[in-house]
């Protein structure tokens, strides 16, 4: 249970939707089902008022139902004044997703046509219970949780984003890893037809984009497999329909548009490590003491900012999630294993 690991530090399990509202929402949903799927698709299932200005997406019915059944505000920042949720337009309009281009506005420009329905995920490697799953079957056994996390990009900017998803640990447990499983390896879709960045002959990334976690990192309760944000499904540019969110690591670890999750014995070589091992490591834990060769990691620009106020704040070790994850690295030299 999350409540067990949540220390007074930076997270608390608060603001869980009171049961009465929760129940009435379910009744509301039941009524909607009676009126037919057409109405349920109208976008009003986002029961959370905060997101009234977020454009409704185009999620399949099963996903809308999962979202409406979310445990809202399961994890929230302990200081919501400091960690204000970024506007949806910024979180969905300014990010890196190199499959769709190198400019931070390219993903929102080019990802619109990505086909995310149907989508299937392969779970394989050192597991007893692998296979290829439709996203719906993959998500079905777990309840969605809303988690508001700080996202710290390796480029020294950050945003606060409310994700919707399921703990990766539950997925791994269901896959039933063998005793040989030591790491988890993730792969993004390869489809040059849909992903212009993959068509470029000047690309430095050797597709598919690959990421990895140590098994205990993957099992940590903070590690999330997200399928939505801002009370709706993920916009394509943010890694639809399935992405990882590892809030104590730099953003590039949180791989997008996942098609394969493999439990493996050897430490995977993640894409950025392969490209520039002196700049990006396997662990990539947020660490204000270890600079990127081209810039300091001691501070970050919290976005959105303005010309008059760069909104620069101190970067926290493990992005402020140290109470939950520091013990994973006990005894390790994090200067060496950056």
């Amino acid at each position: 249970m999350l409540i067990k690991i949540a220390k007074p530090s930076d997270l608390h399990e608060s603001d869980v939707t009171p049961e009465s509202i929760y129940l009435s929402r379910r009744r509301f949903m039941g009524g909607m089902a009676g009126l037919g799927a057409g109405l349920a698709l109208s976008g009003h299932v986002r029961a959370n008022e905060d997101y009234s200005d977020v454009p409704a997406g185009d999620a399949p019915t099963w996903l809308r139902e999962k979202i409406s059944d979310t445990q809202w505000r399961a994890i929230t920042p302990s200081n919501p004044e400091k960690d204000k949720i970024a506007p949806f337009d910024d979180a969905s309009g300014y990010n890196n997703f190199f499959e769709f281009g190198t400019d931070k506005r390219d993903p929102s420009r080019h990802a619109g046509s990505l086909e995310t329905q149907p989508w299937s995920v392969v779970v394989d490697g050192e597991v007893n219970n692998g296979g290829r799953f439709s996203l719906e079957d993959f998500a079905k056994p777990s309840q969605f949780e809303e988690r508001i996390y700080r996202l710290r990009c390796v480029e020294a900017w950050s945003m606060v984003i409310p994700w919707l998803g399921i703990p990766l640990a539950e997925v791994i447990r269901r896959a039933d890893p063998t005793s040989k499983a030591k790491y988890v390896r993730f792969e993004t879709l390869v489809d040059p037809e849909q992903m212009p960045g993959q068509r470029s002959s000047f690309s430095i990334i050797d597709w598919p984009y690959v990421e990895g976690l140590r098994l205990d990192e993957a099992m940590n309760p903070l590690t999330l497999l997200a399928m939505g944000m801002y009370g709706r499904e993920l916009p394509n540019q943010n890694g639809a329909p399935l992405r990882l969110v590892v809030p104590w690591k730099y953003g590039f670890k949180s791989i997008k548009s996942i098609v394969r999750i493999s439990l493996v014995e050897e430490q995977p070589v993640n894409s950025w490590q392969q490209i520039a091992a002196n700049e990006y490591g396997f662990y990539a834990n947020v660490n204000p003491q270890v600079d990127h060769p081209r810039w300091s990691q001691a501070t970050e620009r919290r976005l959105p900012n303005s010309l008059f106020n760069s909104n620069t704040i101190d970067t926290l070790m493990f992005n402020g999630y140290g109470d939950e994850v520091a013990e994973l690295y006990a005894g390790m030299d994090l200067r060496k294993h950056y």
Partner: protein
Amino acid sequence: MATPRVWLLWRIGVFLAALAPLVFWGWQVAINAAGPEPGNYLLLNIGIGGLWMLLLTLSLTPLTKLTRWKGFALIRRQLGLWTLAYATLHMLSYALFILGLNWALLASELVKRPYIIVGMIALIGLAVLGATSNKWSMRRLGKRWKPLHKFSYVILGLVLLHFFWVVRADMQEWAMYAAIAALVMATRLPPVARTLPKLRHRLSRA
């Protein structure tokens, strides 16, 4: 034939065209259309703008050879100074918007990061060329003026190196600028430089 008035209009036109991108980016920031990090938007756009200015400035001599049109030579100093202006604004964007005018950090970054050091040398070079882009300096420096201003080729190389070091995932954009730069520099190679006027004759006869 063109009168002095027409040349003046030409120079004013070039001035306005070189100013236009800065006005446009400023406008985008003012109407909140520059994204959640407007300082970075200005930094990157003005950096690319500075590279364009440098490439355009260095294209003027071969273009003159190719066309013998007087207008190109007339805007050479102006575009050179625009290059310096863009580069200065680019550096100021970094100091102001990225480092938040943290002087101590600026001082340490300027000596710590190779790509910044290279950018700084390029900027100092542009400033020296800018400061000597006047009749008085040309007279004072005499024969040495030309070799001094050949340093602009080195600056182009430094800027491309600076840009190369910040590329992350895809070389396409950089490769395009490097190819244009290679073309511009190739026109300086003596055999090519000699051919340009001949090429003009052939073109005008055709």
